[in-house]
C-alpha cells in the first residue's frame, strides 16, 4: 500500500458525506445503498464512522459528471478513467467524482458503483494506489466479484496504518452507535455471558488467552484476568464468513486454525496467512465430512482431534498421519457422549462443551473430573 505524500488523513473519526447528484443509470435508493455499503466496509476495519449529510457541506462530496467538470482531471468518455477522488483536506479534499459516461450498475455487469466507490473512498481517506494487483487500491479495475470480501490484506494494512483498527471492545461499539443513523441495521444482540443458556460455536486458546466464538462475535479472556473483551469476528478477520464451526491453536507456531463448513483458514494474530481458505479434505478427512463440530490440539501428544457428531479423527503432527477410521468419542473420552459444540485444552485438562454443559476431562485419569456451566470462565 502507499499513502499520499505528506500522509494526509482526517483528524476526526466521524466523517460526513453528501451525494450531490445521482446517475440516471440507477435508482437513487440503489446509489445511496451502494455508497453506504462502501463506507461501512471501511468502518468495519477502522475506528471511522460515516454519516450521510443531506444539505450542508460535507467532508466527502460525491458527484457524477462527464468530461470536464471544474477540476484539473476531465473524464474521458466511456471506459478509461471511471472515477477519481482527492486526498483528505479542506474544500475539494476527500471529494469523489464518478464518470457519468460509464454504465453504473449494482451487478457484475457494467461498472459496479459499490466497488468503484470503495476504491475512490480509499483515496478520500488517504490511501494512494497500490502496486499489489490483488489489492482494491490497485489502479486498474477488475471484474467485481461479490462473493469475495473486497478489501485485500494490503488495503487493510494501509488504512489501519492511517487510522488504526476498528474498536473491538463492546463499550466502544456502544459509543460509536450513538453517532450512527437511526435506520442503520443493528448488529445482532450478543447473548449475555452469564445466561444459563449460553452455548458456543467454537472455543480455542489464542496467544495465552481463550477465545469463545458465537455467531458474528467472539469473547476474549485471559484465564487469570476478570475482564472479558468482545468483538466482531469480521473486525479481526474481515475476510472470514460469519460464524465459526471449530477452532484450534498450535501455540508453538503461533497459528490458529478456524473452520467454517468444508473450508479452513490459518491465521496468525489478525492476519490470515496466504493461500487460505483451503478445503478440509487436504487435512486427510474423507469427502463425506462436510463440517467439523469441534477441534483441538493436544499439546502433550502433538495430535489434533477433529470431532464430527459422535466420532473423531486424530492427526499425528509428528508422523503426519491421520486416523484411517474414526473412533467413538465416548470410547476415547469416557463420559463425553454425543455431538460436542467446542473443545479446548487448558493446562492439563480438556474442556468439552455440549449445549449448556461443560465437562472438565482429565486425560491422565481418562475421566470427567468436573461438570461445569458453559459460562464458568466468565466469573458470573
Amino acid at each position, binding site marked *: 500500500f502507499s499513502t*499520499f*505524500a505528506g500522509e494526509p488523513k482526517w483528524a476526526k473519526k466521524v466523517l460526513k458525506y453528501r451525494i450531490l447528484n445521482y446517475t440516471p443509470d440507477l435508482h437513487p435508493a440503489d446509489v445511496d445503498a451502494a455508497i453506504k455499503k462502501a463506507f461501512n466496509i471501511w468502518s468495519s476495519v477502522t475506528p471511522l464512522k460515516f454519516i450521510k449529510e443531506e444539505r450542508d457541506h460535507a467532508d466527502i462530496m460525491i458527484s457524477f459528471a462527464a468530461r470536464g467538470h471544474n477540476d484539473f482531471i476531465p473524464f*474521458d468518455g466511456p471506459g478509461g478513467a471511471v472515477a477519481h477522488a482527492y486526498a483528505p483536506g479542506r474544500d475539494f479534499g476527500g471529494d469523489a467524482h464518478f*464518470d457519468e459516461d460509464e454504465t453504473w450498475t449494482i451487478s457484475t455487469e457494467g461498472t459496479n458503483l459499490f466497488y468503484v466507490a470503495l476504491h475512490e473512498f480509499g483515496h478520500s481517506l488517504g490511501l494512494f494506489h497500490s502496486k499489489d494487483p490483488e489489492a482494491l487500491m490497485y489502479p486498474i479495475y477488475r471484474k467485481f466479484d461479490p462473493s469475495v470480501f473486497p478489501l485485500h490484506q494490503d488495503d487493510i494494512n494501509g488504512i489501519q496504518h492511517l487510522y488504526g483498527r476498528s474498536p473491538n471492545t463492546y463499550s466502544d461499539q456502544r459509543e460509536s452507535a450513538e453517532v450512527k443513523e437511526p435506520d442503520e441495521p443493528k448488529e445482532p444482540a450478543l447473548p449475555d455471558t452469564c445466561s444459563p443458556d449460553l452455548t458456543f460455536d467454537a472455543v480455542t486458546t489464542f496467544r495465552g488467552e481463550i477465545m469463545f466464538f458465537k455467531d458474528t462475535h467472539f469473547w476474549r479472556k485471559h484465564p487469570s484476568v476478570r475482564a472479558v473483551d468482545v468483538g466482531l469476528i469480521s473486525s479481526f478477520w474481515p475476510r472470514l464468513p460469519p460464524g465459526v464451526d471449530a477452532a484450534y491453536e498450535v501455540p508453538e507456531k503461533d497459528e490458529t486454525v478456524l473452520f467454517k463448513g468444508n473450508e479452513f483458514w490459518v491465521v496468525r494474530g489478525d492476519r490470515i496467512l496466504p493461500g487460505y481458505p483451503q478445503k478440509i479434505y487436504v487435512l486427510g478427512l474423507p469427502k463425506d465430512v462436510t463440517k467439523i463440530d469441534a477441534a483441538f490440539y493436544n499439546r502433550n501428544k502433538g495430535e489434533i482431534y477433529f470431532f464430527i457428531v459422535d466420532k473423531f479423527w486424530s492427526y499425528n503432527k509428528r508422523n503426519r498421519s491421520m486416523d484411517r477410521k474414526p473412533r467413538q468419542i465416548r470410547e476415547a473420552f469416557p463420559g463425553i457422549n454425543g455431538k460436542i459444540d467446542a473443545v479446548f485444552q487448558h493446562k492439563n485438562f480438556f474442556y468439552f462443551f455440549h449445549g449448556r454443559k461443560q465437562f472438565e476431562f482429565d486425560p491422565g485419569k481418562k475421566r470427567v473430573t468436573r461438570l461445569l456451566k458453559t459460562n464458568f470462565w466468565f466469573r458470573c
Partner: protein
Amino acid sequence: FPADMRQKKEEGIQFIQIYLENYYSFTKDGESAFIWKNNSPITKKIKEMQEFLGLEVTGKLDSNTLDLIQQPRCGFPDVAG
C-alpha cells in the same frame, strides 16, 4: 496489410502517450521524447509504468502492456505529479 499494422502501431503510441501523461506525469518535450531507444524518456516511463502495474518490464509497447492499459481504471495518477 502492412499499412494496417502501421496504423495500429501509431494508435498504440498515441494511446500510451496520453496514458503516460495522465497517470505517470510524462511530459512531451519535442520529438526526441519518442525516439524508441533504451534510455529515451518514453522508454523509461513505460518501464516505470510496467513496474508499477506488475507487468514484465520491457520498455516496449508489448501486447500485455497494451491490453492492461486499455482496461477501465481509476482516474487518479499512479505517480504523484
